[in-house]
């Protein structure tokens, strides 16, 4: 009756059924009673109300029974949740990195992937980290969700029980492209997984360090390097070109030199590129060092 996409589906869905069942029972009873009274004691049919006395026994009963009932429901919920915090010792480890607006998954051996590929029936612990703001690691089919909070080491774990692709969504609001921050969880047989992980590139082999600075800081979510327009203007052929910007409401032309690139990163709302909204790009003062800005600028020079 319950799917076995993960080992938690059973506990969670059971809680849904039990608590939802009681809820439905109360809703139907209250509504039924109201309709019955409205018909039966309608003023036309019952012009004079009958005053009744408070009954302490009745009140004690309808206080005690709900208390027992909610305690039971609490227990069912806790029972479904408790295993989510008990990671088996032999679980394999993966790190999910949330960053505006892209998921990355780090595997042992310094390997990195955009898709979370996992072998079936093997417990996996996912360490949750964030590079910027809070993101939510949410796989609806597995009934798991836990936030990636910057500065904290949260985790989630599960045992996938079904082959196939599942949606991974960001559940915690994280800015303009929040609703596009999704990825795929791909559950494969163990041998396929072994093949896949063996073929996965070791990261840090990036030919250009400037590019990885952009990547690491999430710039590429808004800026393309191939000329296409995303949230912000493309960085292709930017360096050395003339850009039309708005400064304090007045439009003027400015040449995209080192100084301009630096200002764009540290104080993006000062000169706003025409046709793009203000306030979308945040200032990276404090997060990106001068050294990194130089690396970025150096890299932009090569993007002709």
């Amino acid at each position: 009756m319950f799917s076995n996409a993960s080992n938690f589906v059973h506990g969670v869905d059971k809680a849904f059924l039990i608590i939802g069942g009681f809820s439905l029972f109360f809703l139907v009873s209250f509504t039924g009673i109201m309709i019955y009274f409205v018909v039966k004691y309608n003023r036309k049919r019952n012009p004079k109300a009958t005053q009744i006395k408070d009954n302490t026994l009745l009140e004690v009963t309808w206080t005690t029974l709900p208390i027992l009932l909610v305690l039971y429901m609490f227990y069912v919920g806790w029972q479904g949740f408790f295993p989510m915090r008990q990671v088996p010792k032999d679980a394999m480890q993966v790190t999910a990195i949330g960053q505006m607006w892209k998921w990355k998954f780090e595997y042992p051996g310094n390997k990195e992937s955009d898709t979370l590929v996992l072998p079936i029936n093997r417990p996996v612990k996912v360490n949750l980290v964030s590079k910027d703001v809070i993101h939510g690691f949410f796989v609806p089919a597995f009934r798991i969700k836990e936030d990636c909070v910057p500065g904290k080491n949260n985790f989630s774990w599960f045992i996938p029980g079904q082959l196939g692709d599942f949606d991974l969504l960001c559940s915690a609001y994280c800015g303009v492209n929040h609703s596009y921050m999704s990825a795929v969880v791909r559950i494969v047989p163990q041998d396929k997984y072994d093949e896949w992980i063996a073929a996965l590139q070791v990261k840090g082999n990036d030919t250009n360090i400037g590019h990885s600075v952009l990547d690491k800081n999430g710039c590429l979510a808004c800026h393309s390097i191939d000329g296409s327009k995303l949230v912000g203007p493309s960085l292709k052929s930017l360096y050395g070109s003339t850009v039309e910007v708005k400064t304090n409401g007045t439009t003027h032309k400015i040449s995209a030199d080192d100084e301009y690139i630096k200002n764009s990163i540290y104080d993006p709302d000062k000169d706003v590129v025409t046709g793009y909204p203000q306030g979308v790009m945040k200032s990276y003062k404090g997060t990106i060092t001068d050294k990194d800005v130089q690396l970025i600028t150096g890299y932009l020079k090569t993007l002709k």
Partner: protein
Amino acid sequence: MSGNKKNEYVSYLEHQGKYKGIFSWIFTLDHKRIGLIYMYAIIVLFSIGALMGLLMRIELIAPGETIMKPQTYNGMFTVHGIIMIFMVVIPGLSVVFGNFFLPILIGAKDVAFPKLNRFSWWVYITGCGLAIASQFMQNGPPDTGWTFYAPYSTTTGSNVIMATFAAFVLGFSSILTGLNFIVTIHQMRAPGMKFFNMPLFSWAIYATAWTQLLATPIVGITLLMLIAERLFGIGFFNPSLGGDPVLFQHLFWIYSHPAVYIMILPALGVITEIIPTFCQKKIYGYKAIALSSLAIAGVGFLVWGHHMFTSGMSDQARWFFSFLTFLVAVPSAIKVFNWLATMYKGSIDLKPPFLYALSFIFLFTIGGTTGLLLGSVATDVQVHDTAFVVAHFHYIIFGGMGFAFFAAIHYWLPKMYGRMYNMKRATIAWGINFVGFNLLYFPQFILGIEGMPRRYFDYLPQFQPLEVVSTIGGFILIGGLIFMISNLVQGARKGEIAPANPWHGTTLEWQIPSPPPLENFDEAPIINPNPYDYK
């Protein structure tokens, strides 16, 4: 305008004070006029907010961009949330009907501090002005959601400082109003009116006022910390400055959960007034209802963690907050039992206020029981931060507080203006609102369980059919609201003259003429020890 020509008196609407025209409203010290100017402001703000809600629904009718850009959408749900929460539902019933009727219900001439009351309104309007201004200032509307979660809120380039400052100012208005009502209830009751002789709406306002007074300073300080972090880089919340983002969530919800009770307790109070009147029956379980208000307010202070089950809190905190959340459901259930018992063997008059009260019970039950699913940790893991939450809080605050507001206005409008609205149109509008509301929000429970996150500008194609149903519901609801409001406005301005006690109620407001005279009671009111003394 007077409905009671036989004994000559001057109603508060006709009374000529020091000021003329609009100034006789914004400089008034009369609690009734202050209640009305709060109401006008709230209706305008609610209409703006509801329109934004509809625009978001139109955007969501199809995947991809429909009528606006992602950044616009994000600003829209933030501003919609800020308006609806901080300016409409938190002050809501308490400032409108609390102001107008609390003094009358306890036999007083006014609130304890009329000047403070007027000042609270000015502060409120200032806060609203600031919040509206934040939409149009340089860096674009705030885009953090009304929850202002750090570190997004401390780093985004949009107009966060202005919006948080507005919420801070609005908080002051709320604190001062709470203080005023507490003192009013303690000091201004008519001779012979003991605490347990008060109508239950006053009890609800009393419990609410304590929550306002005690909880609001916490959000005030939290928002100031946020502003300080943005302006001076003080690391309270941003981990790259040595802060803790989860600390923000704790501080925010320590206030914002009790804030839910600030909105809903007066709503429960309104329903408790309406049911006996339209059943012509003594309220069942007076003490249980009065004390359950205090219980809800008290335990409500200790459940905030249920908004943070997936934030990485300790396991102990997770079960503890889940446990307390389940407990707080009990006093709410007790109220429903008492209402149903009050209807038993009553003589039920199915007029618009009572229809709204019945639909309140239905919607509040759905909102409350889905709250159990959010309070249970296992199920919350699935539905936290999804459309399920959006449906849940709309059922509680719109289906609950909102419908209670509609109930209250249909109940008390003849007293406030001395005129009656068109009953048939009001009933039709109620039907449209009820159908539209459920069509708009019920599908979102299912969407949430299926995994549609909230605050999503775009979504996966499998979610579309239910999103379309929801948007259709949105249109129906907005239509119903326009119809309802126009009927009420027409009633208040040109409706038939209403008798002083059109519903045959027993509480004190029905013993004085409509609209009431300036100081409510021309003769000292006679206090019946049982406020619901139906024969």
